[in-house]
């Protein structure tokens, strides 16, 4: 039985894993870089050890240092969180060799799913639908044309040696097939000296929908339903929800079965996610598997009522799964938003800095998973995500209102955050109606632009507040300012002590 876990991560996910450890009576060991001495995971853990300088390549990614701490502290297992070493097959192997349990899948599963071509072949063999397309590069024009006719337009023609959009053509009409393939091939030749192309079905209005799965070491595998993750910016998920507003019972059941089949095809063990691309008609295709816990796992936890980290640990303890598929249901609706330290008025540039003040949202149906605190300085070396806000309500519309209420109460000063942007998303008609795909953010720019106009009254209030603060500071610097009308320190000191002194 696992009695001590080293958490090879930082930030909110490290704290989140340690919380479940604490509930299970398992000791937690934090590792930290030199930039993270004051980070919450160091404070929350039972033990903490420094593993190197600030850059992650010299600390959180150095297997040797992490293994050394695990051995020194007698940790039975390592939880990698997400990112860093979580999908590193060598690290999974290394742990096994050192006799430490890696809380995650085998290197075989990581490798198979980590390589797109191998994953695609494995899924095809397992009968899981993949995006229709060629699995080998095509040199010949005729072959390409006949392949496109077989798949049916629209398709994407991609240079096999390519990248960056070069040698890429979208073919939407039958009559454009030949000219488009020719154009793609010649561009590919010019750019990469190789005119081989791939052909892939083009999904016009793609939804990103993923299924959470859990698999034990005894051949049992269940899915915990879907998460809708189509609200993305620069391929980064911004808002996630479950159930998906476009899902039907029938398709959910089918996709769930395929998700389980996909996991079984690689002898999966632990928690994982099967990502699908889904079109408006609910045709779905395997996209990839994430062989780790996801950032957005809490919405599944809330709606299904399961602690996924505890399940991961149970599986690593060689226990059988706690739940059978037939025992699981989705209750109500959950939404998660990711709060980043970034400036929405300035092209979402990361905006690290020191938290001057934080008020966290509370109350019914609100979960907040964060790691920052007042006075904490967000290091510039790592991901700028500072927390996740998760709400639940019986119905989707109520969940959206609850999210707005929670965002209203969530206040951070000292840094700029994505909170105003997230708040605007909750008001976009397409989002409220649940009719959106991965183009959501670009399609709804008019709703999401920073609001430039404020009421004159608010402007005046802002000005007056700053003015009064300034006068107070002035009178504190030079007491006896002389001006009879201004004794401006009153509202400060008064406010502070009033509860006691004004009786």
């Amino acid at each position, binding site marked *: 039985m696992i009695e001590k876990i080293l958490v090879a991560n930082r930030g909110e996910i490290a704290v989140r894993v340690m919380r479940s450890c604490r509930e299970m009576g398992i000791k937690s060991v934090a590792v930290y870089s030199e930039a993270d001495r004051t980070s919450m995971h160091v404070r929350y853990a039972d033990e903490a050890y420094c593993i190197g300088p600030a850059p992650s390549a010299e600390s959180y990614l150095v297997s040797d240092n992490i293994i050394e701490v695990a051995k020194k502290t007698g940790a039975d297992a390592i939880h990698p969180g997400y990112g860093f070493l979580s999908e590193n097959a060598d690290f999974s192997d290394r742990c096994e060799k050192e006799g430490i349990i890696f809380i995650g899948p085998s290197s075989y599963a990581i490798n198979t799913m980590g390589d797109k071509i191998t994953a695609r072949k494995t899924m095809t063999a397992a009968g899981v639908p993949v995006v229709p397309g060629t699995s080998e590069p095509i040199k010949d024009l005729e072959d390409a044309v006949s392949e496109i006719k077989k798949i049916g337009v629209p398709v994407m023609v991609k240079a096999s040696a390519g990248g960056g959009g070069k040698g890429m053509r979208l073919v939407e009409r039958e009559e454009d097939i030949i000219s488009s393939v020719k154009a793609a091939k010649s561009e590919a030749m010019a750019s990469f000296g190789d005119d081989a192309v791939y052909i892939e079905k083009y999904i016009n209005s793609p939804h990103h929908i993923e299924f959470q799965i859990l698999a034990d070491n005894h051949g049992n595998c269940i899915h915990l339903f879907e998460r809708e993750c189509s609200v993305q910016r620069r391929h980064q998920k911004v808002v996630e929800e479950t159930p998906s507003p476009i899902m039907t019972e029938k398709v959910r059941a089918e996709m769930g079965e395929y998700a389980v089949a996909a996991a079984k095809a690689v002898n999966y063990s632990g928690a994982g996610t099967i990502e699908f691309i889904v079109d408006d008609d609910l045709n779905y295709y395997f996209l990839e598997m994430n062989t780790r816990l996801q950032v957005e796992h809490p919405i599944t936890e809330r709606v299904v009522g399961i602690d996924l980290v505890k399940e991961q640990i149970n599986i690593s303890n060689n226990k059988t799964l706690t739940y059978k598929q037939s025992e699981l249901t989705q209750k109500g609706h959950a939404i998660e938003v990711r709060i980043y330290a970034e400036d929405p008025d300035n092209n979402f540039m990361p905006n690290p800095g020191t938290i001057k003040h934080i008020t966290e949202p509370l109350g019914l149906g609100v979960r907040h998973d964060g790691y920052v605190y007042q006075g904490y300085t967000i290091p510039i070396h790592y991901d700028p995500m500072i927390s996740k806000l998760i709400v639940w309500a019986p119905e989707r519309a109520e969940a959206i209102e609850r999210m707005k209420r929670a965002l209203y109460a969530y206040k951070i000063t*000292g840094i700029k955050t994505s909170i105003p942007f997230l708040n605007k998303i909750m008001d976009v008609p397409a989002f409220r109606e649940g009719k959106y795909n991965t183009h959501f953010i670009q399609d709804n720019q008019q709703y999401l632009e920073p609001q430039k106009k404020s009421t004159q009254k608010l402007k005046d209030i802002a000005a007056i507040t700053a003015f009064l603060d300034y006068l107070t500071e002035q009178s504190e610097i030079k007491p006896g300012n002389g001006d009879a009308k201004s004794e401006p320190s009153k509202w400060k000191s008064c406010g502070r002590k009033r509860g006691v002194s004004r009786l």
Partner: protein
Amino acid sequence: MAYEIKVNGEIMPIELLKQEGNNVSVNINNKSYEFDIVEVEKGIYSIILDGVSFNVELTPNEYRKYTIDTLYDHFDVEVIDPETRYINNRKGGHEDDVNYISTPMPGKIVKILVKAGDEIKAGDTCVIVSAMKMESEYKVVSDKKVKRVLVKEGDSIEGDQPLILLEDI
């Protein structure tokens, strides 16, 4: 004491008329407000104006400059005292013409593309800064001459720290 206040670029006259305890009367741009104002937490003001409750978060930046956040809005505010106003007037309002390059956030210098004495054209990149895995290029907006480079590649920098001093050509 004739103060002015600059909110998001707009300059308005402002005057404290009266103050009794938490109750404050202020005139701004010829409009009067009566406030009930209390600083409830450091930098957080609770204001009741005609019964309506506002929460205002104030972050002091440089001297006389503040960042103000209300529920949905963000304001940059600067208090202009009579002395500063006099100086500004003499400069003909050019007080914002800062001749250096800086970044709005802390980060690390990835590359410096200019050296002291270089004459550079509007739009030329001077320095590349990385923060949180993202690199940003900082350019000049008009033709300039590089006076001094204050940092070197690999340096960690604070937000708003002068990196490269420039002079007009």
